[in-house]
């Protein structure tokens, strides 16, 4: 049944192409935001990246397509048009949606540990590595707790090893 399977593949291809076409249309529709002043757009994008969607938790406002994110995007745009600074917009949303909405948490008592942890851990790691590398490295014989071999001993050892090798061949 080779012709049959070929047929169905052709159908799949068409369906795939159709899907592709449709999806590109959807993306195009989503991004229409008009500003009175184009210089607001980069700030708008930046804010959407840093604000979290309260409903979908692991997405920011730029990624999420949930209803609340659409509303909040419109709200951010409205506030930008009202000439609020980025900090004021964040404050405005924080007062309503709590600090949760900020993907970049403010430095305060509750988040202090979060901010300090990387620095503290790097310093701690560096300290430990320094301590370990400064410690005097014991030589091989010290590790095995034997005295270094004399020349005769070494010769004898080589002989033994060689004879053993020959024996096993």
């Amino acid at each position, binding site marked *: 049944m080779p012709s049959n399977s070929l047929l169905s593949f052709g159908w799949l291809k068409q369906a795939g192409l159709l899907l592709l076409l449709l999806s590109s249309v959807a993306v195009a529709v989503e991004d229409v935001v008009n500003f009175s002043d184009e210089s607001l757009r980069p700030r708008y994008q930046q804010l959407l990246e840093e604000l979290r969607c*309260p*409903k979908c*938790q692991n997405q920011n406002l730029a990624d999420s397509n949930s*209803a*609340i994110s659409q*509303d*909040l995007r419109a*709200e951010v745009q409205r506030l930008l048009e009202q000439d609020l600074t980025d900090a004021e917009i964040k404050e405005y949303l*924080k*007062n*309503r*949606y*709590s*600090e*949760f909405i900020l993907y970049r948490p403010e430095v305060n008592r509750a988040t202090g540990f979060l901010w300090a942890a990387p620095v503290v851990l790097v310093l701690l790691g560096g300290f430990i590595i320094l301590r370990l590398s400064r410690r005097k490295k014991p030589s091989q014989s010290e590790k095995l707790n034997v005295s270094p071999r004399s020349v005769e001993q070494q010769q004898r050892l080589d002989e033994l090893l060689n004879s053993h090798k020959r024996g096993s061949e």
Partner: protein
Amino acid sequence: MNRLALFIPFALCLALGAFLFFSLGKDPLDLPSALVDEAFPEFDLEELHDPERQVSTEDFAGQVLLVNVWATWCFACRIEHPWLNSLAEEGVAIVGLNYKDHRKLAQDWLQERGDPYQFSIFDPRGVLGIDLGVYGAPETYLVDAQGIIRHRRVGVVDERVWNEEFRDLYQQLVDQANAK
């Protein structure tokens, strides 16, 4: 002493494990609320049944009340509704906030299922919703006689939730209001 120091990483692992384990039981949807102990935000919106009438916080009239955010598109609201009806029958004052909805659909919905609300705020664009920090429906706010939000519940309020989170606080607030 040195030997004991070898156990430090192990102890740290245990501590981390314990922290993660106890975090498992937490509901990640349970967000901290920015508005608890703050005044209910001011609003000036149409009433759901009567477009001519503007409603605001003044219509709370110094009562202890619940503000219930709902919509016809919200499935959980259907589950919640019978309990709101029985609360209203018990004499609990409830104000509806019809959130991002169509007026006609909402009116029919209440006609069909009963209307537990003293009045309903009609907020088709979610303006008050944003001021309240609403991010889904249903949500329920307990507002005291001074218009301060005292408790917020995101999700369905049913008999269990009412008994666990609302009943005592509600009674306490009502008693306070009556004493004055």
